[in-house]
């Protein structure tokens, strides 16, 4: 959680719901949203969810059916189910879905990843976790308890096999968004009336985890037969560990119990007293007057032996390919724009409500036809405050195939440069890390995790951006005929940043013919793990590195320029490099452009057009500046690597001249857009 404007605080949490989504995409993804929203509702003394984010990793939608391992759903079906689950749940909760990504790789086919994030807003004086007193009542609010989701967390940590669908189906929880909405509405009222002293969500482990955590310092008595059930017949242990959805746990001083129950009843939400906090530092459970559990809190929280694992890491060998220079790169650019990872995700985005709560400033789709790929989303969540909140994410698993350190550093740089491109700054930026990994009993795999973590440590300090939350999901593997298919090392970095004036937001679409186009930041020969190499069937050995000192300086200069209103459009360079970024700015703005590669600032000698066009070097931006602001803009940027490379034109064509002065790209903007929109126009 970070301060928003002095009166309000914002929190951000991202969760994964991978294995449930693998076997039951709709339900798994829906409850993934429900779960992370409850995390936010249970933060401090309860936050109001104000934005959702979604990042998915799937197998390619055109994956050959005949190659599908038994028991595995086709990526297309998983994609559609997950999308529907996230949309149905998020839309019904009245939370805008503002930011996300969809990544594709064959290794996700049997083990898709579903990241669900929620941003919450609360009064600053309610941002600290409460503390209950002995005698406070334990109140369970929301959904009834059933047999769904038993051993959900255990299942989530196991390896998947062909039998998972049949054996673990009951481990997937069953969601009901409206129940959660009722709980949320009642909860915010109860919070504002100060009726409860502490709150937490019932997530993995159900009551066992929520009650056990909350009562660590006091002790607690719970009467399990008082827990409202969906149907009769549950044993007390099933009640205790069920992960049925939409439940929150409150500590309520006895004098407030009646008013609290009434407050929830008004919203149609069920609330039940199921026990009380004690001062004996014990966990005592009863079922129909029988004592069924009597454990010391000390044992419960500190009694578990620590696991010891070994890690090592060796850089994998992927040779740097020798590629003959081509006459032009028109076809290459069109293919990269149409690749699964780069292409338009409008099909997904449109089906999420991104307007609800009326706070949007920069939407996920921007530009002249409102269908261009915005860098970060911005909302203005407090109507009386000028402050905006920027939300973005960074993820690129291909670099991890070469070096997880640079993958993690690149993801952090990507998330932050999107914040900067949208008009935000590093001043009040915060990060989240979500690791999804294969088995960490594998030394190499654990070594890769260590390297990625080291990068998070280093970059967080270098950029001055704290990690405020994170989560890991390990054992993302599928066993098939004795072979283990591990997902690629995956790190999602989510970022949020407070900007003092939301009206300084910058969108990425070209605005006006005649304006200057700048490249900001130096380009290096860093094609390892790039879309360009991937399209040619290579991985390469030189992933983009991050040079945080130069990057931070550049980002601060850009923030200054955007805060002075000197930048008409700004877009970060990521997958597909300069070529893709230019094309996106052109078709989002419905304008052409003419640029020359020979003016690009480079960090080393580069004599190839394809490197300049498609290198994915970090910390680079394209900016559109009005000629009248040229001098002031350049003064603001002084001391950084930058150059004018051309201008926006009123023609309908994107023209890029190579180092020898010959056109290496010359394509109608319409053609570029069509290539980008076609693949996911479902």
């Amino acid at each position: 959680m970070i301060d928003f404007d002095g009166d309000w605080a914002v929190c951000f949490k991202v969760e994964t719901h991978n294995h449930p989504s693998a076997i039951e995409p709709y339900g798994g993804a829906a409850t993934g949203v429900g779960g992370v929203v409850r995390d936010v509702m249970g933060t401090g003394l309860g936050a109001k969810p104000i934005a959702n984010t979604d990042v998915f990793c799937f197998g390619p939608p055109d994956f050959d059916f005949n190659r599908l391992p038994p028991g595995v759903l086709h990526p297309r079906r998983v994609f559609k189910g997950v999308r529907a689950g996230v949309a149905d749940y998020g839309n019904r909760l009245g939370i805008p879905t503002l930011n996300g990504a969809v990544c594709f790789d064959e290794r996700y086919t049997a083990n898709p990843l579903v990241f669900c994030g929620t941003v919450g807003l609360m009064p600053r004086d309610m941002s600290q976790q409460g503390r209950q007193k002995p005698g406070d009542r334990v109140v369970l609010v929301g959904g009834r308890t059933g047999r769904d989701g038993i051993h959900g967390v255990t299942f989530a940590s196991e390896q998947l096999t062909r039998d998972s669908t049949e054996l673990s189906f009951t481990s997937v929880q069953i969601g009901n968004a409206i129940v959660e909405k009722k709980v949320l509405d009642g909860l915010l009222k109860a919070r504002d009336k100060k009726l409860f002293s502490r709150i937490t969500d019932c997530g993995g482990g159900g009551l066992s985890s929520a009650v056990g955590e909350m009562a660590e310092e006091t002790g607690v008595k719970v009467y399990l037969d008082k827990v409202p059930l969906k149907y009769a017949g549950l044993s007390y242990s099933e009640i205790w560990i069920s992960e049925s959805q939409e439940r929150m746990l409150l500590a309520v001083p006895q004098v407030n119990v009646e008013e609290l129950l009434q407050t929830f009843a008004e919203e149609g939400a069920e609330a039940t007293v199921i026990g009380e906090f004690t001062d004996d530092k014990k966990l005592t459970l009863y079922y129909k007057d029988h004592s069924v559990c009597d454990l010391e809190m000390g044992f419960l929280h500190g009694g578990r032996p620590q696991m010891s694992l070994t890690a090592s890491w060796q850089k994998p060998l992927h040779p740097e390919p020798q590629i003959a220079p081509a006459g032009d790169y028109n076809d290459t650019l069109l293919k990269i724009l149409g690749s699964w990872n780069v292409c338009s995700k409008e099909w997904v985005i449109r089906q999420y409500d991104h307007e609800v709560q009326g706070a949007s400033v920069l939407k996920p789709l921007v530009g002249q036809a409102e269908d261009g790929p915005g860098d970060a989303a911005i909302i203005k969540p407090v109507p009386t405050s000028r402050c905006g909140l920027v939300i973005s994410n960074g993820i690129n698993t291909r670099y991890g195939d070469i070096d997880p350190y640079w993958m993690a550093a690149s993801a952090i740089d990507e998330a932050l440069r999107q914040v900067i491109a949208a008009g935000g700054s590093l001043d009040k930026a915060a990060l989240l890390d979500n690791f999804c990994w294969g088995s960490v009993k594998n030394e190499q795999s654990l070594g890769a995790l260590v390297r990625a973590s080291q990068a998070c440590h280093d970059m967080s300090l270098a950029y001055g951006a704290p990690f405020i939350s994170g989560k890991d999901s390990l054992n993302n593997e599928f066993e098939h005929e004795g072979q283990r298919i591990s997902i690629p090392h995956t790190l999602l970095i989510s970022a949020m940043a407070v900007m003092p004036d939301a009206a300084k937001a910058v969108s990425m679409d070209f605005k006006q013919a005649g304006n200057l186009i700048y490249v900001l930041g130096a380009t290096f020969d860093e094609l390892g793990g790039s879309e360009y190499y991937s399209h040619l069937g290579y991985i390469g050995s030189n992933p983009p590195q991050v040079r945080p000192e130069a990057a931070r300086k550049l980002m601060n200069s850009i923030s200054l320029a955007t805060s002075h209103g000197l930048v008409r459009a700004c877009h970060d360079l990521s997958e597909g490099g300069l070529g893709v970024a230019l094309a996106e700015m052109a078709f989002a703005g419905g304008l052409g452009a003419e640029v020359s590669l020979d003016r690009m600032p480079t960090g080393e000698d580069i004599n190839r057009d394809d490197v300049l066009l498609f290198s994915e070097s970090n910390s680079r931006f394209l900016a559109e500046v009005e000629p009248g602001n040229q001098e002031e803009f350049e003064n603001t940027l002084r001391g950084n690597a930058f150059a004018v490379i051309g201008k926006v034109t009123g023609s309908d064509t994107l023209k890029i001249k190579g180092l020898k002065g010959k056109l290496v790209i010359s394509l109608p903007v319409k053609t570029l857009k069509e290539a980008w929109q076609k693949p996911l126009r479902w």
Partner: protein
Amino acid sequence: MSTVKTLILRAPGINRDEETALAFQQAGAETQLATINQVARAAFRFADYQVIVFPGGFAYGDDLGAGRVLASELNLKLRAEIEPFIAGGGLVLGVCNGFQTLVKAGTLPGPVSRGQTVTLTNNDSGRFECRWVYLTANPNSRCVFTRGIERIYVPVAHGEGKLVAPPEVIESLDVALYYTNAKGRKHAGYPHNPNGSLKDIAGITDSTGRIFGMMPHPEDHIRATHHPRWTRGEATAASLGLAIYKNAVEWVKSL
């Protein structure tokens, strides 16, 4: 009348209630949120207000069809409140889920005694869609809420917004808002008409012009930075959805 009091009704699954309150406040009204349950037990009385609003969302999850359950509640639990309110000259606004509710309760196009004559059903695209649309007001409509409006730009966010009715009913509707293109031309096709609504109908009013329902969300465009192309300098005051709320407030004040 000096103060205009607006009651915004909530039911489980309703959202955009707070934005609606903000829009009315910005237009100069006082607002109060109340749940259906509170009204049913008379903690709030319609008679104390001049405007009643059914906001958007997914009342009861829309599990039996959008607005269906809330419509039944309106007719069964709140009949004694809403009938005298309407007869007494009050204003009723239903947006999105609220429009679906009013249509399914028969309140729109009315009179309620005729029961439901119009429905809002699945979009032609077969999916929920969130996108911005141009709405052009019908200058001949009796609608109080759309007076003086030429064209506004607001988002839709719904899966069941296609207005359907038998031809004779369609012909008899008082259409207040049409889906058009940016220049105000009807028959502009998808996505200008985002759901396939017959005759491009986006909003209708009853025979008094005081009960009004529309699918798009004017409460989501009450400041310039809501406009999806404000960074391109394309936001205009005339395109704000706020006009709907201002009209309601001014009409009540003029009484």
